[in-house]
């Protein structure tokens, strides 16, 4: 029965991809059912940008649902919430008026809340669900405020009417609407500092749900940001672009810094989602700044880079979460320090996770590299902008993107190496079993997508270019090059991942051929790892994830502010013998300490102050009623 639900979502996914592709290629469509929803009715419309995101949802949901079908105890419930979740997500990019959008958005949030609370007994899940619910509804409040403000000014609640009324808005209204909408959407996307719910909620949910939350749901925040900054409000002032660029730069670096010191596999992946959202924002910010300066071709480049990274991130993040799900299921723990040696017990999962890791680390010729390359190009060409302040903001973006790229690679060496390589660190890891056939199928489909998206930018970039052109309402430039090579901005740069891929494959075979030619020795002998002749070799001697992250903890200690705890238990009879050593080196979150805790304290203090009104004394309540009545009589 539960398999039927997932099967249905696979079909929904395929339909979504088809419909979305139709939209991307220029098809349009509309559907209005006025009686279904109050205050405007159900209003759906298909346009290129909406089509792209619809296709994205289907593209991720289909393999994930196949995986979920194969998940061993999928009778654990949550299928209804899952179905509602996916369908409501599909409605968001199609929504054409405020009520439809808000209802779909809220359904999506509620469904995911129930999915996050899957494990109702665990204190950690409950807290994760609570924080998620609070932050998502705070975001919703901002969204509603912004949308209603716009609706009041434009005189209609339909998005199409906003587009035509955009030029008549006063700058104050426009800026206020942008700030409200951006806060709401950025909170959903997980931009720093509104990110606190992400690393709690994504690990708590079951893996296929985390894959969709990270791969698709936060992208709907990006969808909203795109609509707000480029579509509904017309061309805004330059500070919007600068703000998004800086937010992107900060998010990408901070996201990966937090990921580096994480040992919970799923939380590490969640932090990487924050990092990748930052990279997408870099593209969007640059697009806005170029558009304000009138550089339409470069604006399209920036937007294409952002959209490409959105698609790529959905592919490899979903893949990584599905892989993590197999691992967590097989070993019963999310802690990397208890894993190891899984590449021999779970070879398929390992290969898929490796492809996902290489993709997210932006290694050529996979898809992560192509979109990061495009983002770099979009940022590099800020020389066409004259304001030195903008040039500096772009330079900040470039430096942070470069730092992020390197740190992401380091983090995934850790994630893949500690989890899959060397010896198993616990019995659970030693007895892990490979994922079931359907789970493997879902993962392999996404892995193939990563490779395909990497080798085929010459096909994808023109399609995204037309979407970007439709959003920015300019004619897209002909991206130069042929089926093999991608040429950007004339002579500025060219790339051919297909050629690189072929060259790499040929170069792999070259040494093998050369060995045969010169008659090199082909003998191999198996023996233990070199341990300086040590007699006993145990998994305790392997490097740990904590140790691996240590250089980073030290270099960035001003950010992590680590505290150290060292407990040594000596033998009761002599201090020369040590019985137990416990070492802890946790990091502290500056956002928790400097932003959220003070804010919550302030709220609590305010609530306590207001609480004095509730004295419980009936006489005082009567006095309140009398005062309110007198006040109303005076004001009326």
């Amino acid at each position, binding site marked *: 029965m539960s398999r039927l639900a997932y099967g249905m979502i696979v079909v929904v996914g395929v339909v979504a991809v088809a419909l979305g592709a139709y939209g991307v290629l220029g098809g349009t469509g509309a559907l209005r059912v006025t009686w279904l929803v109050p205050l405007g009715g159900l209003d759906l419309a298909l346009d290129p940008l909406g089509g792209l995101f619809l296709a994205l949802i289907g593209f991720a949901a289909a393999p994930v649902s196949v995986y979920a079908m194969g998940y061993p105890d999928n009778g654990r419930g949550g299928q209804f919430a899952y179905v509602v979740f996916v369908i409501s997500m599909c409605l968001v990019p199609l929504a054409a008026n405020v009520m439809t959008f808000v209802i779909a958005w809220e359904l999506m949030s509620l469904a995911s809340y129930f999915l996050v609370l899957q494990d109702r007994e665990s204190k950690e899940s409950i807290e994760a669900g609570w924080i998620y619910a609070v932050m998502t509804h705070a975001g919703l409040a901002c969204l509603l405020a912004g949308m209603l403000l716009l609706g009041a000014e434009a005189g209609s609640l339909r998005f199409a009417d906003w587009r035509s009324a955009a030029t008549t808005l006063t700058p104050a209204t426009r800026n206020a609407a942008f700030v409200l909408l951006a806060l709401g959407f950025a909170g959903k996307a997980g931009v720093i500092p509104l990110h606190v719910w992400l690393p709690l909620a994504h690990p708590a949910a079951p893996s296929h749900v985390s894959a969709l939350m990270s791969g698709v749901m936060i992208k709907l925040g990006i969808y909203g940001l795109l609509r707000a900054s480029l579509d509904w409000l017309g061309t805004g002032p330059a500070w919007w672009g600068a703000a998004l660029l800086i937010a992107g730069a900060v998010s990408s670096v901070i996201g990966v810094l937090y990921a580096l010191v994480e040992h919970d596999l799923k939380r590490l992946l969640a932090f990487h989602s924050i990092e990748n959202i930052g990279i997408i924002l870099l593209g969007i910010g640059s697009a806005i700044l170029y558009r304000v300066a009138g550089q339409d071709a470069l604006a399209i480049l920036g937007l294409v880079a952002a959209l490409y990274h959105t698609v790529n991130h959905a592919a490899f993040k979903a893949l990584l979460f599905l892989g993590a799900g197999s691992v967590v299921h097989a070993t019963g723990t999310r802690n990397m320090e208890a894993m190891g040696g899984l590449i021999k017990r779970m070879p398929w999962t390992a290969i898929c996770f490796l492809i996902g890791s290489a993709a997210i680390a932006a290694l050529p010729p996979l898809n992560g590299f192509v979109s990061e390359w495009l983002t770099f190009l979009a940022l590099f060409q800020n020389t066409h902008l004259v304001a030195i302040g903008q040039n500096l903001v772009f330079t900040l973006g470039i430096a942070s993107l470069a730092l992020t790229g390197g740190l992401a*690679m380091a983090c995934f*060496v850790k994630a893949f*190496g500690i989890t899959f390589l060397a010896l198993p660190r616990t019995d659970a890891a030693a007895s892990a079993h490979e994922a079931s056939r359907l789970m493997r199928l879902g993962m392999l489909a996404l892995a193939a997508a990563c490779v395909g998206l990497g080798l085929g930018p010459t096909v994808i970039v023109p399609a995204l270019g037309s979407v970007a052109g439709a959003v920015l309402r300019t004619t897209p430039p002909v991206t130069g090059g042929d089926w093999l090579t991608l040429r950007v901005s004339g002579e500025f740069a060219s790339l051919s991942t297909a050629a*690189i891929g072929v060259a790499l494959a040929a170069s792999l075979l*070259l040494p093998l051929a050369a060995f045969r030619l010169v008659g090199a020795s082909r003998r*191999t002998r198996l023996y233990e790892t070199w341990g300086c002749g040590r007699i006993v070799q145990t998994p305790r*001697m392997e490097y740990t994830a904590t140790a691996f992250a240590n250089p980073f903890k030290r270099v960035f200690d001003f950010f992590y502010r680590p505290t150290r705890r060292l407990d040594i238990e000596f033998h009761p009879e002599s201090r020369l013998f040590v019985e137990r050593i416990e070492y802890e080196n946790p990091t502290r979150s500056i956002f928790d300490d400097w932003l959220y805790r003070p804010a919550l304290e302030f709220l609590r203090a305010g609530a306590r102050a207001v609480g004095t009104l509730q004295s419980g004394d009936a006489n005082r309540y009567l006095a309140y009623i009398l005062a309110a009545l007198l006040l109303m009589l005076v004001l009326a």
Partner: protein
Amino acid sequence: MIAGVAVALVQLVIVGAGAPLLVGALRTIKARLVGRRGPSPWQPFADLRKLLAKEAVVSTTTSWVFRATPYLLVASLLVATLIVPVVTTRPPLAFAGNIILLVYLFMLGTFFLALAGLDAGSAFGGMGSSREVAVAALAEPTVIIAVFALALRAGTIDLGRVVERFGGEPWLVANPAHLLAFAAFFIVMLAETGRLPVDNPATHLELTMIHEAMVLEYSGRHLALVEWASAMKLFVFMTLLANLFVPWGLAQPSGPMPVLVGVLALAAKLAVLTTVVALLETAVAKLRLFRVPELLAGSFALAFLSLMAVFVVR
């Protein structure tokens, strides 16, 4: 087409055969500087030949990642060779890649080498991997900012075209942006290729190793590939440094005579660079590991200053 294939072969031979010679020459010069006769510059060829005759001892702890890494490392460097302008300004795969691709190709090699270090399950390998990726990650911003400064002046990130544009500038060597970018790039080269003061390639103490610690488990033909890849990485970095910052002598693509001139020009530039690196390695001591980020931050500052110089001049 034929010319393209010929140039590709010439480049592969120059880098493939020149790399061990470069490393050998570096060792010889270093030895002479401390009063030893030292090995012959052709010694690495003898070393590689001997390694190919030895068996490969593979640890039972490792997986296919360990065995595949030497091949992947060599593959990434061979492809990098075809993108860098070694003797001409139109390397064979110029259409396929540029400076950014080059940086990430090197990262591909580092990624797999670090995984191989972890695969053996020994503390040495893990330590080497951890340090290596830390240094690589911290060197990235410097490289990209320096590249950005170059791209700003040249109007392109295609390596061959950058060399062509710079070749046309008469007062290039006096340009402060150029000199600052060169200094930044030089420090990054030392960091990425594991030379002093970042890493001592000749150390025997595992606690002081960065690159060597990751390859402790390799033997026989695998070790030969890893050593060769390491030498090629040094050669490619030095070639990049030489040809980007002293861009004269490279053949505009035509004819065997200009290519020969290109080869001789490259040999001269590399000889000077090798001597400078040898002098530096003899004179400075290795930095403590946690001082290396300070060095890299310094190189980032230099790259940033180079960028500011370009913006100010514009």
